[in-house]
Every structure is written in C-alpha cells, then in structure tokens.
C-alpha cells in the first residue's frame, strides 16, 4: 500500500453502498470521502484537493459522464475511475474515451478496487514526475484490459 496520503472522492447515488465502501476503505487507512450526487461532487472538488475520483455512471441529475467531462475540463490532473452497473456499460465505454482511467463493474470486489486505485495513483505520480524509480512504480503491471465479455 502506498504510504503517501491519496485523497479519493467517491460519488454514488446509492448512499448505503457509498457509506459501507467508505467505511471499508477508511479501515484500510485511506483518505476517502463520499458524496451522493454529481453536483455535490463538483462543489467538493472546487473546495478541496482531490487526487482521484471514483464515479458512478448512472446517477439521477448530473450523471457520471457529465461530471467526468467537467472534471477533465477543470482539473485534468485528477484521475477518474468509473463505477457502473451493467446497464451503463456503453456510458462507461464513452467515459473511457473521454479520459477516465478505468472502470469497474458493480458489485465490486474490494481487492480489485484497491488494485485499480493503486494503478491510478501510480499514474498520477508518474504524470507529476514525483515517482522514484526505487519504489518500483514502473514495474507495476498497469492493466487497462477492457473487460466486456
């Protein structure tokens, strides 16, 4: 686990899901916060520094893609992982094209999520040029396999 504090924001309209997930990640010592709408997420991002956003695609009101576009427009450094049910797979695909780092299918496996988060964090470090080679970040196997089947 990366020791450096990584600020992660979870956006999901399913509050029960969101809360449990945040509890589980916090238990693992991560700096995680959450919100249940796209609009609220933008507000939070404007006020706080966030490294990574995990974004549910299917949300009432401002949906995941719109939020993604806004984030990529305003804060291109922030990496976004899309989170979706099956019905929004096309949207996830579209999200990938818009600049999302990766996507995950609900229900998610906590280990898969952690793995993806780490990958994304490594990418952030690389793009910031802060990564140290001895940390072995480049050796991480960055998987961008599109799992459709």
């Amino acid at each position, binding site marked *: 686990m990366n020791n450096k504090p990584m600020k992660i924001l979870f956006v999901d309209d399913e509050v029960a899901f969101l809360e449990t997930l945040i509890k589980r990640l916090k238990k693992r010592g991560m700096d995680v916060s959450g919100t249940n709408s796209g609009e609220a997420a933008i507000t939070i991002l404007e006020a706080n520094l966030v490294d990574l956003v995990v974004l549910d695609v299917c949300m009432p009101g401002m949906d995941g893609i719109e939020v993604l576009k806004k984030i990529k427009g305003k804060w291109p450094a922030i990496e976004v992982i899309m989170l979706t049910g*099956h019905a929004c797979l096309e949207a996830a695909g579209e999200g990938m094209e818009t600049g999302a780092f990766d996507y995950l299918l609900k*229900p998610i*496996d906590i280990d898969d999520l952690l793995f993806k988060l780490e990958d994304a964090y490594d990418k952030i470090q690389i793009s910031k040029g802060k990564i140290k080679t001895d940390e072995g970040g480049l050796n991480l196997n960055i998987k961008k396999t599109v799992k459709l089947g």
Partner: protein
Amino acid sequence: MNKNKIWGRPYYKSLTRNIMLTVIVVSFTPMILVSLVILYQFKTSYHEKVNAHLEELVLKHKQNIDIFLQDKTSDIKILSRSYGMDQLSNDSFLAERLSILQQEYKDVFVDMGVLNEQGLQVAYAGPFKLKNANYHEAAWFKKAIKNEVSVSDLFLGLRGLPHFIISARQKKGDQYWILRATIDFLSFNDLVENIRIGETGFAFIINRKNEFQTKPRVDISSEKELYKSLLVKKPEKFNGVQITIEQVGRKTKSVYGDEYLYVSSFLKNNDWLLVYRQNTSDAFSTIRRSMSLALVILIFGGSGIIAMTYLLSRRMVGFIAKSDTEKQLMNQRMVETSKLASIGELASGVAHEINNPVAIMVEEAGWIQDLLEEEEFSNSENLDEFERALNQIKAQGHRCKKITRKLLSFARKTQSNNHEININDLIREIIEHFKKRIKGSNVTMETDIKDPLPIIHGSNTELQQIFLNLINNGVDALGKTDGIVKISAMDVDGQILIKISDTGAGISPVNLDRIFDPFFTTKPVGKGTGLGLFICYGIIKKMGGKIDVDSVMDIGTTFSIYLPVNDKKNEKNL
C-alpha cells in the same frame, strides 16, 4: 428431408391403410354386386332361353316321330281297308304292296304279314320265313287285337333282331284280322339319333317299362333308375315337355360333367318317352365362358384397382405428410419479435434494479469481513462459520452479477460493432474449436461455405458467442445418437445467410415458442442458464439481422441467421 422417418410414423401408415381400404371397399362392392346381379340375370335368362330352345327341339322331334308313326300306321290302315283280308292274304299281292311301300319310304318297312284272330300269320312278305308263324302269345298281338291300330314296343321277336310292329285291325265277318308291318329299327333309330346338340346332347326313347326303344349314342343303362322318375310324371302336367336337371354318379354338384339336363316328352299316346339328355356344362357352356371371362376381368381389374389404390394412397399420404411438415415448419417460424423485445426490456430492467441491491449486500458482507479481522472477534468460536457465510454471500453476489450481465447484454449497445469481420474465417475458427471437442464422439460436423463472402460489420466476440451457442445447442441436441451438425454460409439478397442445422431430436412445438425467452432451458438445473438463445437473438437484432428457427420432431432443427452486409445504421448507433 428424411422421408423414411415420416413414412415410419404410425399415423401415416394407418392413414395409408384406411384410404386403401376405403377405396377398395367402395370400388369393389358395387363392382361385385353389379357383376353378381348381371351374371344372375344372364344365367337365368340364358337358362330360360336354352330350356325353351330344347323344349322346342324336343317338341318338334316328338311331333316328327308321332307323325312318322301316324303316317306308317295310316298307310297300313289304308292298305288293310282298301284290299281286305282275302286279297292281302295272297303272298305275291302282299309282296307287291310291300315293295310299293318300300319304294316310297326307303326300307322303312321290313316286312308285312296278315294274321287271323288266333294269331296265325296267314300271309307274309319279307326277308324272313315267317309264314304260318303263330303270334297268339306275343305281347304285341294281344295289344293289336284289342285296338284298331297299334304300335308295339321294341322287341326281338322270332327273328332275333330289334324291331317293332305297327298293325291295323279289320273285321271280316265276325272275325278280326290284322295287317301288320315291321318297321326297320335302324331307320327309326336315325330319327331319334339325329337329335344332336353340342358335344353331349343326344336323344333316346324309352317305353313305359323303362326299356330303350332306340339305341342311345353312349351307354347309359346305369342311369335307368333315373328315368323311372321321368315316367312317373303325368303328361298333362308339363304341357307335353318336362325339363329336369339330375346328377349322375357323384352326388356333389361342384364337379362339372356329372350334372345332366333331361328334356323329356311323351309320345305315341303316352306309351313312349322321348328323352333328350345333355351335360349341363355343355348345354350352358356360354354361361361358363362368360363367367370365366368375367372372373378374369374381375381378377385383372381388381388387381389393377388394388395396385392403383396402393400407389395413389401412398402418393396422397405423401402429399399430406409433406404439407403437414410444411405447416409445422411454418408454425414454428413465427418468432414473436415484439414479445421478445418486451421480455428483453423487462429482463434488463430487472437486472439493473437487482444489481445495485446486490452490490450493497456484497459490500456489507465485505464490511463485516473487515470487522471480523479485528482482535476482539479473533477468538470467537464461530469465526470460521462467519467467514464461510460471508464468502458465500460474496460468491452468490458474483453469481448474480454474471446473470445480470448476460441479461443486460441483450439490450446493451456495444462499442465494438464496427469491426470488419470475415464470417468464413470466424466460422472456421469455431469449427476448429469444436472439432477438438467432438473428437471420438458420434457427431459429424459438416460445412458448406461459399467463399468468399462479403465482409460484414459487427463485433467479433459477439458473433463468436452466437455461433458457439448455436453449435453447442446442435451438438447437445444430438445427445448420444449419431448425427450431423452442419454449418452453411451464403449470401442472399445483400445479406449473409448462415444456417446451423442438426439432425437431432427436434424441438417440440410447445417449446419452440419459448426457446428465445430468457431463462428458458431444457437442460438440467445448473447446466444452462437459458440465456444463450436470448442473447443470440439480442445480438443479431442489434446487428440489424434476423434469426429464424425451423424444427421438425425426429428430423432436426435449423437455425437461420440473416446478417446485413453493409448496414450503416449500426455505425450510427455507436
């Protein structure tokens, strides 16, 4: 289409049999009835005709004989009247009379004699030396002396030759005298013997004592008993002629040749009986010929009818079976697209709605798992059970995820449907895959691929999924029986038509309506999700194509997939 399989079905067998039976019964019954009626009528009228003819014949001859006898009798009578006893007792005068008669009748008269009342022949003319012969005791004389004229029965007499005598009685003073003449047997016999018809018909005469008065052509003395019955009949009763049919020898009527027709008539004042005898089969030979001819026609016509009935009924049932099969195919082609579309929507809706709650449950289970890792629980005796239960919840959650994913793929728009696909390469790949699988099994795989086929646009993985599903189903349909799974591909009217057919058990009409429904499966629980065809249908529809199914029980199933070659709409759907 496997014709033998259709013929083998009991329904068509019994149908063929029933048609045959009906046609045969309907055509034979009137034919046989008409034949019988006509034959009967013909037989009756022919018998009547033959009988009438024979009756007439016998009657005519009876008259002939009667006239013959009457003529001769009158001759003798006239002679006796004209000349008287004295003149006729002169031998030379008598011989002169005889010679005149003989000239007139060609040896019918053999001799003549004059007898006195005591039976003594006082004068004689003829080849025998019978002058002064005494006939006092002779039967003919006794009869002759009592009647004005008489004709005797046939007898041998003094000369030892068969003959009969006609005589005329005259009176001289108070004494009777008789002029008699002998009639040559042979010339009389000719009269009767000339009555001949056919091969067996001939006539003879018997007297009241049942003695032959003429010589029959064949020896029929053994039948003598029979004639008694003819003699018993009273002449008044049968208008002069009677006709009877009697069996001779064997008792059974079935043997031809033993049945004879007797036509008889009394003559000579009912003293003699003229009998005409003919074998019935000879007399009615025309009928027998007609019957044989009718029988031959009946047999040939009957066999003809049976053969034609057999051929026609087979052909008819063939048509029926064919149209049944076609009807079955037509019924089964109707895939209810609208129904499937709504079911698809329902399924994806349910899948979507189920997915979030499942995600939450899995997450909560994960949270509990996280908490269990804390020290305060590490000594709990049920820790392992908690772990097991939580893992189970997670596993089932992922199972739900798989199902919902499959379900949702029905309505899902894919982002990869603009790939250029060579359908033949794809099919070959899949067949290679299957060849390994069916190695050593009873399944034969055949391909009939037109090369090259136009490139189509779509998702490689999705098309693979379709073919894998359908070929898999085909192989499963064969089960443990020998069979063929055939894949053919061709281009038809700007579309690519891919057919995947198997020679398996077929799909029952009830099931056929439902095979594209989600979760419909005939496989055992756990072996199939029932989503294969549902997804295939969804993918093909998305590609702008069409899927059809033809299935006939016991013959097999064919899935036909039509894929558009150049469908630009798909690209817009990206």
